[in-house]
């Protein structure tokens, strides 16, 4: 792997940019690997990267039915934060946030992590109580979060409507300054490049159609559209399709898959300097470096794999955006899209061993998995390599739905659901 640097740019400029190499190779699949990861999204590629760099396991294949980063990694609204209520969630999301800081240097790839601050608005007494509880809980866990008055909120985000005449006036806000955004595609590409350079095979257009198990129940490998590929360890990181893959191995999951939509506006000059979220009016917004306003909507109410959702869901979100930012009422929306998110009953992910020996699962990130990408890959690689969870993901078992030790994280999406 040739290192990217200012000198590389200068060198390539001198010779007509003919020396840039492919960021990752596309090899033919081997007959057998030590580990197969199902799903080349951010979480799957990060898992492969950390298997190679932290655990020295490089005989790894990442199988992807479509193209790399083309699922929810390329469809989310790129928001990063760790202001979750419970200790378990704080542990895993802040582990990720610490890795975001420095990830561009680690990967030698600019993931454009921008700690521009995530501000969550309170519109009523209940919001104030809930958000202040989060502020205190976060600070006890060593996570930065602070309380702002409406005036301070306005100062931090000038286009915000803090008028007392608003239908849902802003009565306060919480602010996590380390929160922000990153370039979602670059995260997948950066991990893919780093993993590929260390010998990991990234195999696109290779859909898993079955999971093979030996007589003793252990995993032997997977059937794919490119034939059988053997492995004694298989990690399923398939987002909305995780339960489909797990069913192939005979494991039924506490998951339901819903369409989640997002949309972007026409690009404009910098106007929203941070991420703004509101539970009560049900919307969140940030501005990409290209200038588009990036807006996240809610999920549809029914199980679906259609990667599309109802128009009324977007309309509801835009109503809320216009309520918070009346200056955007005449903005034109450029495009909208949907992804399929796998939601657990307690809105917390599952990163765990499964009842099947050699089968591991990293799923259930629901509507907010992007922010956790580095941390999720890091602890999931540990879980696969050691056949034992990292202390950070140890609480995120499948069994918690039998024992009742739920991680009931209503803050997962930061919007009411």
């Amino acid at each position, binding site marked *: 792997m040739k290192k990217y640097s200012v000198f590389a740019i200068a060198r390539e400029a001198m010779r007509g940019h003919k020396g840039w190499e492919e960021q990752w190779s596309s090899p033919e699949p081997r007959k057998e690997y030590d580990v197969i990861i199902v799903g080349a999204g951010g979480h799957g590629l990060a898992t492969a990267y950390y298997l190679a760099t932290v655990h020295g396991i490089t005989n790894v294949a990442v199988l992807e039915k479509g193209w790399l980063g083309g699922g929810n990694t390329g469809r989310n609204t790129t928001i990063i934060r760790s202001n979750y209520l419970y200790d378990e969630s704080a542990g895993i999301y802040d582990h990720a946030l610490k890795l975001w800081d420095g990830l561009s240097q680690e990967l030698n790839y600019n993931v454009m992590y921008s700690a521009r601050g995530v501000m969550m608005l309170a519109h009523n007494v209940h919001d104030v109580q809930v958000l202040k509880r989060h502020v205190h809980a976060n600070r006890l866990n060593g996570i930065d979060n602070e309380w702002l008055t409406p005036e301070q909120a306005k100062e931090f985000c000038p286009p915000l409507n803090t008028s007392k005449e608003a239908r849902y006036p802003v009565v306060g806000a919480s602010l996590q300054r380390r929160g922000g955004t990153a370039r979602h595609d670059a995260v997948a590409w950066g991990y893919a490049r780093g993993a590929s350079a260390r010998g990991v095979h990234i195999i696109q257009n290779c859909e898993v159609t079955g999971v093979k198990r030996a007589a003793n129940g252990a995993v032997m490998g997977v059937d794919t559209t490119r034939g059988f590929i053997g492995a004694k360890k298989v990690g399923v990181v398939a987002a909305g*399709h995780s*339960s*489909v893959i797990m069913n192939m191995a005979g494991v*039924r*999951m*506490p*998951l*339901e*898959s819903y369409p989640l939509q997002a949309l972007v506006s026409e690009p404009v000059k910098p106007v929203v300097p941070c991420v703004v979220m509101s539970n009560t009016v049900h919307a969140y917004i940030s501005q990409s470096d290209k200038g588009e306003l990036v807006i996240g909507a809610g999920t549809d*109410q*029914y*199980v*679906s*794999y*259609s990667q*599309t959702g*109802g*128009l*009324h869901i977007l309309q509801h979100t835009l109503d809320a955006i216009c309520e918070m930012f009346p200056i955007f009422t005449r903005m034109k929306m450029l495009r909208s899209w949907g992804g399929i998110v*796998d939601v657990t*009953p307690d809105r917390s992910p599952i990163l765990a061993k499964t009842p099947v020996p050699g089968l591991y699962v990293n799923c259930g990130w629901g509507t907010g998995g992007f922010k956790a990408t580095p941390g999720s890959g890091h602890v999931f690689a540990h879980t696969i390599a050691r056949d034992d969870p990292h202390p950070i993901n140890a609480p995120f078992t499948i069994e918690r*739905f*039998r*024992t*009742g030790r739920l991680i009931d994280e209503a803050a997962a999406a930061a919007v009411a659901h």
Partner: protein
Amino acid sequence: MLLIRCPYCEEERPELEFRNAGEAHIARSANMAGESDDDFEKFFFIRSNPKGIIYERWRHMHGCARFFNAVRDTVTDKFVMTYKAGEPKPTKLPKNSNEVVAK
């Protein structure tokens, strides 16, 4: 937005009038306190989440307010049929969903 046929009102109405109520034909135990942890987990948390035909409950919230069941393809979001609550899970599905709606 989906168009959903309420089997009680016998009309196709926009999704906004309805609330999805999750997977259908999950029997609630008559003796909930006597359920094992395993069985309670299956009843309460485990879902089939199929990619393809799903049997699900809907409620015609802003109409007759009654619960009913529907068969839908989760890949295309097309309804195959709807039927009244309490009716058995259909074993044979009609080939052409449009014929059912036209009835």
